């Protein structure tokens, strides 16, 4: 017997991770995950048997996020790109700084590219699954992935240059 709990529980950590990367606020992210799980439970019997449960949940989560975004009720807090460095930042902390920057830089991307980088690069969805999830042809997914990474790199290069100038 397909018990929703046993199937859903193992997927919650990655849903929380994706939600947090989207809204950048811990409570708002858990609200989004809760809404996602409630919707999944209420539509459990409509779920296609043998369908990819994880992709279905990520689709629900993203759609809820987009709905909230369109209604202008997104509660995420934005971390400014050029985080003021602590005085005397050592070179060994550069990586920590860059890590902070990657997440922040991701916020500068259009939602679709941001989701794509997260779904493929962090959540390990196949390109095909990501294409279905975003409702895009595979070719479009590949070119947007390339463009998204290019943009991310550009944002981080500028941010890094700023950072290094400030430290000097």
């Amino acid at each position, binding site marked *: 017997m397909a018990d929703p*709990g046993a199937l859903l529980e193992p997927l919650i950590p990655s849903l929380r*991770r994706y939600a947090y990367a989207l809204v950048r606020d811990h409570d708002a992210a858990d609200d989004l995950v*809760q809404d996602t799980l409630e919707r999944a439970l209420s539509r459990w019997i409509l779920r296609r048997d043998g369908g990819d449960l994880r992709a279905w949940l990520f689709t629900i989560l993203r759609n809820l996020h987009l709905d909230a975004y369109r209604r202008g009720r997104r509660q995420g807090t934005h971390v400014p790109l050029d985080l003021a460095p602590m005085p005397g930042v050592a070179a060994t902390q550069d990586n920590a700084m860059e890590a*902070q920057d*990657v*997440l922040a830089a991701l916020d500068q991307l259009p939602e679709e590219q941001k989701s794509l*980088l997260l779904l493929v690069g962090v959540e390990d969805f196949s390109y095909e699954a990501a294409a279905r999830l975003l409702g895009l042809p595979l070719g479009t997914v590949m070119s947007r992935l390339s463009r998204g990474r290019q943009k991310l*790199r550009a944002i981080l290069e500028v941010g890094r240059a700023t950072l290094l100038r400030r430290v000097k």
Partner: protein
Amino acid sequence: MNAPPLPVGEDELQAYIDGRLAGDRLAAVEAHLAAHLDLGKRVATDRRQRALLRGQLEAKANEPVPARLRIASLQAAHRTRRLGQLGRIAAVIAIFAVGVGGGWYGASLGRPGAGTVAQTASTATVTQGAVAAYRTFVVEVAHPVEVDARHEAHLVQWLSRRLGRPLAAPDLAKFGYTLMGGRLLPAGSGQAAQFMYDDQSGKRLTVYVRQAEGGNETAFRFQREGDTASFAWIDRGFGFAVTGMALREELLPIAEAVYHGFERGEDAAPTRKD
């Protein structure tokens, strides 16, 4: 991008960044990157940023899941809401039934201490809860019960503790009904227990027990709603209802047996509060 013409496509570079190439193509991409240093640097940057992003978010996925996201608690909340809606519908039906004066019959069984008429409202509450729960779960195919009859001891112990009263799943075998299991339900500000039975034809019957504080003892009250019939009564602070798709004459002996069963259980094990 001012990289020279690419024997290796951009899609393959993305696949390389994501670590999804193997064998010949992996070797071809690596050779290509080694021969084109600018491109190699660019791809190395993308790989590093991808790894940093994963690392940054790893902690989030390793956090313990907060209680409010546990599936069990979400399901319980979902059921409560659904029952609330059904309860309101049942209340409207009950009021309508009283209004037309045709829905309620009292039937005193001459048992000791039976019979104040003033508690109709309380038995009505019990009936409403029982009928709403019956209608919700009798049609349920996948999850008719929360704990099934194989774990009867656990079920009875659990429900007894939650209701603060020793319970037993009445034995209805002589009426052709066997225990399927039971579940805990919200009932007003307290809890209710539902035991579900079925017969060989799959016809289901429920025994419902809820807290009814301050309620005096009452006689059996019979109510019929469509094809669903229910006998309800209040006894020592608890409301009971036997509900099924049965005729009044069929249901009455079952209700009596359940009443005597709980009466004995009460004598054998005095009420405790949890």
